[in-house]
Every structure is written in structure tokens, then in C-alpha cells.
């Protein structure tokens, strides 16, 4: 079974802090994603990556950056946390699409509160 592990289930930080959310997958997947999930807004894509050291902006990248130094690890960085970044953050990964779209596998999420 694919395992996507997010380092923290719950996190509380203060406004202005630099925040790191870590995600590790154990199935050698090329593609990794960060989403935030808010009531009434569904899942919104922040950043994604197709390979090591590659990153692409999603729909709401402002205020975030990412790092992918190793294939299995994809980090989300809040450069200077603000209260409007309080949310549930979900990491996902999937294998390279080879003639067929592959389903994503999700971590359990990190519920981040910015005070």
C-alpha cells in the first residue's frame, strides 16, 4: 500500500513565523502536490512537482513556496505565516501517467492554525 506521510497532524504557529510542512511518500512517485482545504471552497492546489528540483505553481501559490530536493519528499513553506493561512493542508502523490491517468494518494493532512 502507498503511504503518504505528513509530519504533523496539528500545528499551531504565530503570525510572521516561517512554517515548514513536510510530506514523504514511499512509492517512488514522480508527481507530488500540496492542497489546502477550506469549508465551502473544497481543495485548492497550491504547488505541485513532477520531479526532483522541479516545481509548478498551482491555483493559489501566493504566500507559499515549496522544495523538492529528494524524490520522496515535498515540503511546503509559509514564508511569513498569516491568519488567513489557517487551514487543512493535504499532500498527495501519484505515479507518472503512462497511457492512463493515475489516481492520487493522499496523506492524512495537517491542520494548521496561525494565531
Amino acid at each position: 500500500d502507498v503511504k503518504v506521510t505528513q509530519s504533523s497532524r496539528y500545528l499551531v504557529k504565530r503570525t510572521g513565523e516561517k512554517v515548514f510542512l513536510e510530506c514523504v511518500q514511499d512509492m517512488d512517485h514522480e508527481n507530488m502536490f500540496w492542497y489546502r482545504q477550506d469549508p465551502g471552497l473544497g481543495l485548492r492546489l497550491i504547488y505541485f512537482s513532477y520531479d526532483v528540483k522541479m516545481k509548478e505553481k498551482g491555483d493559489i501559490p501566493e504566500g507559499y513556496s515549496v522544495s523538492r530536493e529528494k524524490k520522496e519528499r515535498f515540503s511546503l513553506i509559509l514564508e511569513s505565516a498569516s491568519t488567513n493561512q489557517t487551514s487543512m493542508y493535504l499532500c498527495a502523490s501519484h505515479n507518472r501517467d503512462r497511457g492512463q491517468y493515475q489516481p492520487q494518494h493522499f496523506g492524512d493532512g495537517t491542520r494548521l492554525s496561525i494565531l
Partner: protein
Amino acid sequence: AQSVTQLDSHVSVSEGTPVLLRCNYSSSYSPSLFWYVQHPNKGLQLLLKYTSAATLVKGINGFEAEFKKSETSFHLTKPSAHMSDAAEYFCVVRGVRDDKIIFGKGTRLHILP
């Protein structure tokens, strides 16, 4: 414009009765379609996927979905609801616009005892 529409934000059914969660998409060709379930404080788990093979797809936990191209629908059904089915369900489409993964807004399923 939204390319995936989950027609109901909330659905309530009694335990033991059928479940129907509706999903419509817009596309000029056959996309790949997925249904995911999310239990409270958990990530999304794949229920089933359609990738242009059989139009009736069987998934885990007794769920199934039928791809109807003429109606651009991919509704999720289960013959008999169980209390453990209470969760949020997401319809997801790929291949509609570029290779983007497009999520519906979700349907929260409530099971009444």
C-alpha cells in the same frame, strides 16, 4: 467555469437505504474520473476510478459508479447505506482541461439511524 459539478452539497439517507451522490462534468472527449472519500480529520481515499474501460465501475466498500457519456455524468451509488459511510465524497476529473486534476466541491453524506 467549473468543469466538475457535484449537484448536492449535503445528502441524508437512512441506514439500509440506497445512496446516490451526483457528479456531472463538462468535456468534449472522455476524461478519466475518480471518486474519493474523506472521513473526518483524514486524507482522501480512492473509492473507484473510470479510465475508459467498462462504464460501470465497482469500488471499495460496496460503492459503484456508472459513466454516462451522453449525460456527462458519473454518479456514485451504493445499494444499502451503513453508518460508517458518513463522510465527505469528492468527484475528480482529469483530461478535461490540459492534464489538470479538477475536484468537485464535495458532497457530505449523513446517515440517519
